[in-house]
């Protein structure tokens, strides 16, 4: 269980807070979607949920990050890393720069957790398999396509077997199949008890993946509830969020009496 309790945060060097009064809880095994227009504060909430803001980047924080009932505010980065991991928006930000192959890159996380060689190898292989990128194992991580880089970054997180995962637009550069595979991997991770927070523009991915969705507008969470309710909320477009395809199409066909899901089931 990971919670942000009444969190407001101001980046170092800025007078104004980027987010205000954020209350957000991720239960074990729960996938929570975070949506909102660009620059509403989604990435900031991701940094707060994994503790990197302020532990790594400074800034002013009020409120608390609480994991399994314990306040993690003010704890050093290495302690946080054992509890919660973050997948950055741009995979290049995350790449270690020290690994010569994709296999070594993915193995870095479990190795740094102090696991045995055998366990590290097993976890690395399993992470690559889950995203079907075994054939990239010997490639240079710095010379991958954008989407391949993103899959490697996610594999690196999976290999940590984290209890809490925060992902900032994990599928932005992925093709539809890569997006589907990431969705499957996240579902399997949640089924094993991991709590996930996923910031995404692709509401089609969140639809069916998340149990809950929170909407961020101008640095505040404006609604937080069951995914089926939030993703069908009529205010979504006004907030600058694209509704899922099936919702959009249902509305476009409203006058025709045709039910999209029913039509596809034929």
């Amino acid at each position: 269980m990971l919670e942000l309790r009444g969190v407001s945060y101001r980046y170092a060097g800025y007078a104004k807070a980027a987010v205000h009064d954020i209350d957000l809880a991720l239960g074990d095994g729960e996938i929570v979607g975070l949506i909102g227009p660009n620059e509403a504060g989604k990435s900031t909430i991701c940094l707060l949920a994994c503790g990197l803001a302020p532990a790594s980047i400074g800034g002013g924080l009020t409120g608390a990050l609480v994991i399994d009932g314990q306040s993690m505010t003010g704890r050093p980065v290495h302690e946080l890393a054992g509890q919660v991991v973050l997948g950055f928006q741009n995979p290049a930000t995350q790449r270690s720069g020290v690994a010569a192959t994709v296999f070594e890159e993915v193995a870095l996380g479990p190795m740094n957790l102090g696991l045995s060689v055998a366990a590290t190898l097993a976890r690395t292989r399993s992470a690559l398999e889950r995203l079907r990128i075994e054939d990239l194992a010997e490639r240079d991580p710095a010379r991958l396509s954008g989407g391949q880089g993103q899959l490697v970054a996610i594999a690196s997180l999976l290999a940590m077997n984290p209890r809490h995962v925060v992902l900032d637009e994990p599928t932005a550069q992925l093709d539809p199949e890569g997006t589907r595979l990431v969705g499957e991997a996240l579902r399997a991770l949640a089924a094993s008890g991991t709590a996930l927070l996923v910031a995404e523009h692709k509401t089609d991915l969140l639809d069916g993946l998340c149990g809950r969705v929170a909407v961020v507008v101008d640095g505040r969470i404006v609604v937080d509830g069951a995914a089926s309710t939030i993703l069908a909320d009529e205010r979504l477009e006004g907030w600058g969020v694209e509704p899922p395809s099936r919702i959009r199409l249902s509305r476009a066909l409203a006058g025709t009496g045709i039910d999209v899901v029913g039509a596809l089931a034929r």
Partner: protein
Amino acid sequence: MIEIAGLVHVYPEGTRALEGVDLRVASGESVAIVGQNGSGKSTLVRHLNGLLRPTEGTVRIDGRDIAGQRVARLAATVGLVFQDPDRQIFAGKARTEVAFGPRNLGLRGAELDRRVAEALEAVGLAGAADENPYDLGYSRRKLLAIASVLAMRTPIVVLDEPTTGQDLRGVARVRAIVAALAAEGRTVITISHDMRFVAETFDRVVVMRAGRVVLDGTPAVVFGETCWELLASTYLEPPLAARVGARLGVGSTPTEASLVEALVTRS
């Protein structure tokens, strides 16, 4: 006119990214290139402005083989916006960033200022001209990278995944930019994974798989039911509107608007 013939590209470490691409794009066409990650899309477009050179095959623009032309010279003809804006942006102010290209083309003074202002306006960043690009969020940095290429007024514009990380308004903005370029008769080539954006924005869709072009046609053709099997072999799915249209037996309806129209016509 862009004419690509028998294009093969092998990266130094041995990856065969292109396996023989033949593609002709007429002036003024707007073309989307789709395909799996690693299918060769970005490698292909980087041959258009000489950033990559063919291992085999030729690239001709307006009848001339570009093999001997320098990147700096090609930059006046082909503007390429990278997938990752941080590979492109280097200036301390948004307006300086956008001015860099046209300044290198020899523009100065009021004409240069006008180009910069128009390009920033087109991407919705007129109010951010004096900001440091790195104070802008990722989505706005992407729009800034587009503006810096628009300011070059090249006859050919290439966009590599322009809608990545964009919200509803950002995607609408990109769609409007492509439409405006097409209306001016410029050639637009865009790589994208967003099939709905592709269907709604482009006249022609080129599908790549493992370094080759496997499908090439209008959105109605490429997303039509007869091509689904081939699309599936590249792990692509037609937009939802196309799938619903096919189930309802109203023909190929790649966009929501075409689906609604087909249903109204039928009833």
